[in-house]
């Protein structure tokens, strides 16, 4: 049954009017506005100091300007990011604004009208003065649906979201019957962004038709994948969009309870979503009788205590019930018997955050983006060895090569691309030959990787695939809940073998054992964690077998990353007499002066941290690295004179 009538409409219009007015009033025409990205990434890069510097310099110079903290726009390489709207100029985005630059910007730009071109990333609108950000492939090739408003809104201010058309989709949904809403989502082809890509509309439909008096909607924000942080960014930067999607979902499946399961390791995200729930409740957009209709929804936040396996839906439910987060047999699926044995819909943050736009613009519009089988956009956190790491939202079907080399700027320091690890610990490592693979659910799975949570780690020639495989299996081994024998013990054995190999103690036959164990774990595990845990091993074994063999047969790490197999040395021909740069950098005092007053490394003491390589002035470039470690020249430490 439709819920909206003229009263509801009137109520919503008043709400919007008030919000627009508040936003209008808070803007002071004629005054500069400074927007500072203050999500976790920004804060880590020093946004607090930047904000303080702006405030101090503004006060010192007697300039009136408004400082507005906003969320993250995903361009993490440029943090802290600041956008300045100075009357008479286009809005300009500045990157890497340290406290010193902040002071300089106030004095030069706000006081004297010099926009300091050297600090500019780009203007946000077309103009004759400054190149716009659209000239960068990064901005041009991205297509923002879910993250459209991230970094443009103050996440702690519901009025800004409302004034920009927020919660209109909820109103539109209330004007439709729940069946119509579900049909719209089915038509849009939206697939769950949590990793597996199950059609969202079908999930909702199943939950709606399931018997149960107390249905629940759960938003899965337990982003445990090391290397992915888009859920955190969405929660921190645009929490109301998520709440709106959650409310639409609850309306469609007739649930009156919703839980947001968010990692406790994300304190800022927890704070933002809590505040957003309060604000939406006060505005009558959540809680009892939303906008005066018969539809009620109470939303609570549950802080996940850090167990990777709780990203799996049945484990997540166990954890909500106060138990150990152990996955359960499916069926029954949570849509039939979930939390407290009642029908439960579990959707990822990105899935729910896509919903408002789909409802607003329609299924046909959404289908234009992306591919036939995977419509819409995908959000990836591209990190590792790329020039422009950060969050990227691209239409599904964009090729891997375009994502890594055009949007993210390729590999820094003229190094060679080696592999990309997609989908976190459950994904796979793909070599360069896969650069033409389109990014969508089915193509990635076919290639042996998976969409997963969207973590993408790019590796160059300095990254050792054996070491990375060891890292992932170390992670899954730690996070295995212990229920299935193969996952619990099999991963341990794989880890032991890989540890041996990375230490140069591998033997013939190890690779066959690894493959066999991997296959067994895949077949004999209950949940996704075990089923996908061997993926990094299987893909790296397939595409980078020679690297494993170099470790086993030659005791050599081609990437020179495995520390037991590499050694640092100082080239005496290049080392400059009297230079002491490396000595101070060594944390263990392993560098000594030779008889020729040059420097050498005591291999016994060296911990192979690589600091001396960084410290050695580029004009000498005397520190080198070799593998196997026996190749390093041996230089005797001169006996110290007895004093």
């Amino acid at each position, binding site marked *: 049954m439709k819920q909206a009538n003229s009263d509801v409409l009137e109520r919503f219009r008043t709400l919007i009017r008030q919000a627009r007015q508040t936003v209008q009033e808070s803007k002071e025409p004629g005054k500069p506005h400074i927007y500072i990205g203050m999500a976790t990434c920004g804060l880590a890069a020093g946004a607090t100091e930047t904000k303080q510097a702006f405030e101090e310099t503004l006060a010192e110079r007697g300039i009136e300007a408004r400082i507005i903290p906003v969320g993250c726009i995903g361009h993490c390489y440029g943090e802290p990011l600041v956008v300045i709207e100075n009357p008479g100029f286009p809005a300009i985005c500045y990157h890497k604004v340290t406290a010193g630059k902040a002071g300089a910007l106030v004095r030069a730009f706000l006081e004297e009208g010099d926009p300091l071109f050297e600090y500019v990333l780009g203007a946000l609108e077309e103009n004759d003065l400054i190149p716009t950000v659209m000239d960068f492939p990064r901005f041009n090739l991205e297509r923002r649906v879910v993250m459209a408003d991230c970094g443009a809104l103050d996440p702690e201010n519901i009025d800004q979201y409302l004034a920009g058309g927020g919660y209109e989709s909820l109103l539109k949904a209330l004007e439709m019957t729940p069946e119509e809403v579900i049909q719209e989502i089915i038509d849009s082809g939206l697939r769950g962004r949590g990793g597996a890509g199950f059609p969202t509309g079908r999930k909702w439909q199943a939950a709606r038709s399931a018997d149960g008096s107390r249905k629940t909607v759960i938003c899965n924000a337990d982003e445990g994948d090391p290397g992915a942080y888009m859920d955190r960014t969405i929660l921190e930067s645009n929490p109301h969009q998520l709440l709106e999607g959650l409310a639409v979902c609850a309306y469609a499946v007739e649930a009156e309870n919703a839980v947001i399961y968010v990692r406790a390791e994300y304190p800022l995200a927890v704070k933002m979503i809590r505040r957003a729930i309060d604000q939406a409740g006060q505005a009558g957009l959540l809680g009892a009788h939303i906008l005066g209709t018969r539809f009620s929804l109470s939303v609570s936040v549950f802080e996940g205590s850090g167990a990777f396996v709780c990203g799996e839906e049945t484990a997540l439910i166990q954890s909500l019930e106060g*138990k150990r987060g152990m996955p359960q047999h499916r069926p029954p699926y949570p849509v039939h018997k979930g939390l407290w044995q009642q029908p439960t819909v579990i959707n990822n943050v990105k899935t729910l955050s896509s919903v408002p736009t789909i409802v607003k613009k329609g299924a046909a519009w959404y289908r234009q983006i992306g591919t036939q089988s995977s419509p819409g956009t995908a959000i990836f956190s591209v990190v590792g060895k790329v020039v422009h790491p950060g969050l990227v939202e691209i239409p599904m079907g964009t090729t891997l090569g375009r994502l890594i080399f055009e949007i993210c700027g390729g590999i820094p320091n003229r190094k060679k691309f080696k592999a990309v690890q997609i989908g976190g610990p459950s994904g796979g490592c793909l070599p360069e030959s896969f650069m033409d693979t389109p990014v969508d659910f089915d193509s990635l799975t076919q290639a042996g990787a998976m969409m997963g949570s969207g973590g993408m780690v790019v590796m160059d020639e300095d990254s050792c695939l054996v070491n990375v495989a060891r890292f992932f299996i170390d992670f899954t081994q730690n996070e295995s809940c212990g229920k299935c024998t193969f996952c619990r013990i099999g991963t341990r054995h794989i880890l032991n073998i890989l540890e041996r190999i990375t230490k140069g103690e591998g033997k013939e036959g190890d690779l066959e054992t690894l493959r066999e164990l991997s296959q067994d774990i895949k077949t004999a595990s209950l949940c996704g964690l075990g089923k996908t845990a061997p993926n990094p091993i299987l893909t790296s074994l397939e595409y980078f077998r020679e690297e494993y063999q170099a470790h086993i047969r030659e005791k050599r790490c081609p990437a020179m990353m495995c520390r037991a197999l590499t050694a640092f040395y100082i080239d005496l021909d290049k080392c400059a007499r009297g230079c002491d740069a490396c000595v101070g950098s060594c944390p263990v005092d392993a560098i000594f002066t030779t008889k020729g007053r040059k420097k050498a490394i005591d291999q016994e003491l060296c911990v192979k941290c690589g600091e001396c390589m960084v410290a050695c002035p580029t004009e000498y470039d005397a520190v080198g690295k070799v593998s196997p470690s026996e190749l390093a020249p041996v230089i005797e430490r001169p006996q110290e004179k007895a004093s």
Partner: protein
Amino acid sequence: MLKDIDEMLLTSEKKRENLIPILQRIQQRHAYLSPDAMKLVALHLGISSSEVYGVATFYNQFRFHPPGKHQIKVCLGTACHVVGGDIILENFERKLGIKDGETTPDREFSIERVACVGCCALAPVAVVDDVVQACMAPSKVEGILLGFDIERERDEREKQESEASQ
């Protein structure tokens, strides 16, 4: 401490699903879960204390030993691993003379390894007293610890001076 926990328990409903939030609140106030605290929770919820222990040990968040005054968390997520997060961890361990999961004998520092703090673009990352330190390097490890040393010396000096002036 136990009295405080007792009072806290009075305000929470005796429902099994409250177990994890209760443990989280105790840890937030007292920094760790002591065996006695877990027994109190078990009593309150009417479940066995082994069950409370079982749940608490399942999740990475819970600690069973008091942490140091300054908590150092070194991120060992994928992005941090690729750029040498383990070297950062090793440097902290060497400088402080403890391993991850341990606390220095003077209870000043404790080291933990964490899976991912979600700042992958700024790797390697460490979280020192809730402040995220981006782009770590072994020399930065020394800098951070030196900062604490200077702070401590200054505090001691001020304390001595104020005692002397009295």
